């Protein structure tokens, strides 16, 4: 069975807090916050659920510009924000419970945000007669 189509509303960082407030006041549940690289920037997507329907908000972020935490509206966001900060290196301001980079212990900082691994292709071996 085909699943319902999903729409993602792109908004500016400045509009994030008022829009999330509106979702909270309308009784939506925070489902998740995810991050994905898009060129040099990162897409941060906030998903909400009400009456079994998922709704998404998306902002564009860069490691240079901090984005406001929504944990004063949805406390549950602190796990997702700490996770994105640790894995992608995107700073959040005002996280209610801020682990300051120690929530997920990784051997290299921000492993998903900066290229850490270089794949070296093995050279084909010379044929021996």
């Amino acid at each position, binding site marked *: 069975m085909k699943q319902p189509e999903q729409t993602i509303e792109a908004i500016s960082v400045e509009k994030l807090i008022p829009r999330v407030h509106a979702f909270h006041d309308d009784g939506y549940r925070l489902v998740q916050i995810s991050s994905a690289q898009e060129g040099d920037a990162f897409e941060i997507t906030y998903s909400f*659920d009400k009456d079994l329907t*998922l709704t998404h908000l998306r902002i564009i972020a860069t490691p240079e510009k901090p984005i406001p935490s929504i944990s004063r509206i949805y*406390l549950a966001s602190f796990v997702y924000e700490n996770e994105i900060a640790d894995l992608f290196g995107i700073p959040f301001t005002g996280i209610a419970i801020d682990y300051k980079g120690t929530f997920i212990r990784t051997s290299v900082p921000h492993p998903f945000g900066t290229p850490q691994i270089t794949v070296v292709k093995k050279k084909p071996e010379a044929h021996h007669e």
Partner: protein
Amino acid sequence: MSKQIIVPFGPQHPVLPEPIHLDLVLEDERVIEAIPSIGYVHRGLEKLVEKRDYKDYVFISERICGICSFIHGSTYCQAVEQVMNIDIPRRAEFLRAIWSEYSRMHSHLLWLGCFADSMGYENLFMNCWKVREKILDVMERTTGGRIIQGVNRVGGVSRDISREELARMGTELHGLQTDFAELTRIFDEDLTVQTRTKGVGMLPKDMAWELGAVGPVIRGSGHSVDARSTGYGAYDELDFKPVVRNEGDCHARCMVRTGELFTSIDLIENAIDRIPEGDISVPVKGNPAGEYYARTEQPRGEVIHYVKANGKKNLMRHRVRTPTLANVPPLVHMLAGCELADVPVIVLTIDPCIGCMER
């Protein structure tokens, strides 16, 4: 005011099958605050999607978790199929639903055993795991794998279940019903279980919603939130009704899981009765382009698999929001104010799967 001390709980602890670390801030024997930290089993599986063919990655997605592996595989496939606009055969959707429910039963029985063990109830632990073996036997017989099934494919499934085998599974479900009834009676009525779980680890209804709880944690606090209600796959035909309890304590979360054992039996029986004949997979050509958030219900709760692709054989991003991660904020809330001796029981009631959570 008593002096506050910090007691580390984990990452290695007798009740924890997997490593999570909690710093417990105590005043005497009372927990004032619990500060979790993770990262001991972070494998970077999501990153691996950039290096593997999206069809081969199904097998990696199944290995995100060693317990609810099947549903990770099927949800990943569902996300890719949605992006590629693939309509898989109806029989494949029914087979996925059947194996998903067997997977749920084995996960809940594993948890019930661990939960009994956390209370020092060893006999009950062994009984739960004895019954679980019967489920694993069916999984092995029908898929070839007890824990990692490996039958999900983008476009359907790789193995069918014969009519004779379906009939045999139906017969065996009656025996399981008797086993489940006896286990449920013990978890519901036994004085040891009641003393350790009733009124412990309270999560009020409004807080469960506010803190984004999922699965038996939110259903134990009175919310009828279950992704199966969306009717994904074959669930639109299986007469599904979520199990909900209103008490919001450890006992309620336990009883949601025992109730779901019977729901799974009903769903499998309905699926066996209604499964249509036909193909089990469709050929898949080309590469995906687009993005989708697939949502299904795992034993621990709602799971989200996000895939993003740009027409190449490697996906750009695969993000998994596992139920355990969503249940960390409710856990922190439940632990604040509890007795130190109740911490293992409360931690276990979210059914923590750390391998899942860290991926």
